[in-house]
């Protein structure tokens, strides 16, 4: 490695940082707009065209705010936590392709690298919680650790099925092998598992338990303010974008579908647009889910992860491995089995939840107060 190489890589890192920051600003604006439209509001309208400059105004406000340091904090851990959360979120992008030929380093172990690096941000959340010396923060940090470790398993398993299917861990190769059929038509169950586990990894609604305002105030970030809080914020939105683009690259065909007829530079530019548009659509689905579903309880979250997602993920891996290993079996068995499993899972969830609802009603109705009331009503 020479000095010129080093300079080259530095320029890549700078470009990546700039584009990711722009994307985060876009996502912040988009989230507020989408949420507002779903709730029949206008959202930000004052700053710029339809509030397009609002996130920039917010960023300036955050940076110029006073950075408050509570007296009991463990200063070293407290200041390092935002870095430990941010660096992995940023480091993932070394091997994620934006479009055809648009990748900093196409690693052969790309998917494995992504899985390993994304695990590191858990530690940052724990550090933030512990360093804040705040009950709610510690509780939030521990919740984050429990949640992220549990949902990593179905996430990795869903990625593994794709790796088994295409016999590769290189993201570029996986996308290129989807030029005929995107993986969503081969592995619908894999997509659902990956998306749900990804939402939980992000800590977005309905899995935003570690920073649930009504339970642990703001989780690990309670004590952070100003610029340091905005680093967590930046990392969260970068992670949202990462999970969305991974969904697109792994399941929705990446820059294929629609196949771009041109060649050369024009193809590269158009492929970036295709990936970007698909990713934004996935991001909008995530925001839509946020506007629609209530938050899970912590025990519901754990039982859903360990009793539903992980068994289904293991079954999915086993089926995929069997079908890929025995070449005589046709590939179309896989989507059929996948859909059957998906329906089965939905039925189980439906039954379990309806049972819980009826038992809650029974408990309420067994209380004498309610009985008397209902009798009064009947009379």
């Amino acid at each position, binding site marked *: *490695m*020479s*000095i010129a190489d*080093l300079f080259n890589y530095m320029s890549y890192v700078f470009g990546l940082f700039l584009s990711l920051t722009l994307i985060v600003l876009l996502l912040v604006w988009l989230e507020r707009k989408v949420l507002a439209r779903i709730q029949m509001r206008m959202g930000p309208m004052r700053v710029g065209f339809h509030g397009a400059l609002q996130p920039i105004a917010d960023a300036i406000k955050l940076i110029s705010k006073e950075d408050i340091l509570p007296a009991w904090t463990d200063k*070293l*851990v407290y200041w390092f936590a935002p870095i430990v959360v941010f660096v992995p979120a940023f480091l993932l992008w070394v091997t994620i392709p934006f479009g055809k030929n648009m990748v900093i380093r196409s*690693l*052969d*172990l790309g998917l*494995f*690298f992504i*899985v*390993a*690096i994304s*695990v*590191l941000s*858990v*530690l940052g959340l*724990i*550090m933030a919680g*512990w360093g804040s010396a705040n009950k709610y923060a*510690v509780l939030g*940090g*521990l919740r984050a*650790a*429990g949640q992220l*470790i549990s949902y990593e398993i179905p996430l990795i398993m869903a990625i593994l099925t794709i790796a088994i299917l295409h016999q590769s*861990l290189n993201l570029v190769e996986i996308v290129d092998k989807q030029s005929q059929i995107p993986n969503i038509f081969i592995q619908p169950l894999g997509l659902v598992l990956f998306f749900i586990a990804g939402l939980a990894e992000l800590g977005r609604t309905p899995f935003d338990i570690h920073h649930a305002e009504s339970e642990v105030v703001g989780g690990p970030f309670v004590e952070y303010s100003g610029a340091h809080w905005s680093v967590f914020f930046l990392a969260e939105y970068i992670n949202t974008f990462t999970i969305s683009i991974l969904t697109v690259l792994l399941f929705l065909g990446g820059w294929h579908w629609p196949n771009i007829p041109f060649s050369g530079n024009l193809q590269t530019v158009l492929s970036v647009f295709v990936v970007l548009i698909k990713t934004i659509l996935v991001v909008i689905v995530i925001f839509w889910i946020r506007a629609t579903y209530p938050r899970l309880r912590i025990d519901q979250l754990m039982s859903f992860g360990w009793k539903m997602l992980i068994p289904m993920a293991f079954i999915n891996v086993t089926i995929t491995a069997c079908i890929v290993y025995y070449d005589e079996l046709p590939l179309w068995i896989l989507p059929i089995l996948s859909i059957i499993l998906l329906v089965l899972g939905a039925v189980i969830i439906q039954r379990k939840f309806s049972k819980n609802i009826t038992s809650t009603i029974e408990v309420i109705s067994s209380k004498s107060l309610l009985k008397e009331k209902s009798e009064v009503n009947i009379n």
Partner: protein
Amino acid sequence: MISLIIFYIISALVLIGSAGVIFSRNIVYAAFSLFLALLGTAGVFVLLLAEFLAIVQILIYGGAVVTVILFALMLTKIDDFRSLSNINYWPVSAFLSLIVLITLILGVSQAKINTQNLGLVKFNDFSNDLFEYWGIPFEIASLVLLVALIGAIVILKDKGNDS
């Protein structure tokens, strides 16, 4: 030249981390230092072109082991560890550590490692070797993990029945 500078930086990180594990009086700081040391080791693996090993090191030690250690530490009272660190067993542990160190130094200096033809091992070749030639040791290792898992559940279950 640059890789040499990077090597020195990484080695410094590993040494600082290891020193932190041993010398810090605060057990949580020790866990964070352990994380730093393990991450630095992954960096050394990268410099030796052992990509797979480096990623595994980050995934298992950086992600899982340190997180679980911290999880356990934060759910226990910090005073329990203060009394633990005052036990006067240090001559024994110093003696054992010295033996391990001497063995390692002798082993490394005697070994004939070919450092000239370092090359990147293709992941496919690596996995073929792992699951074909080293298949049985691999299975035994996973069996040990399974036994540990079941053991942990059994221990927990007995305690639950008592109370």
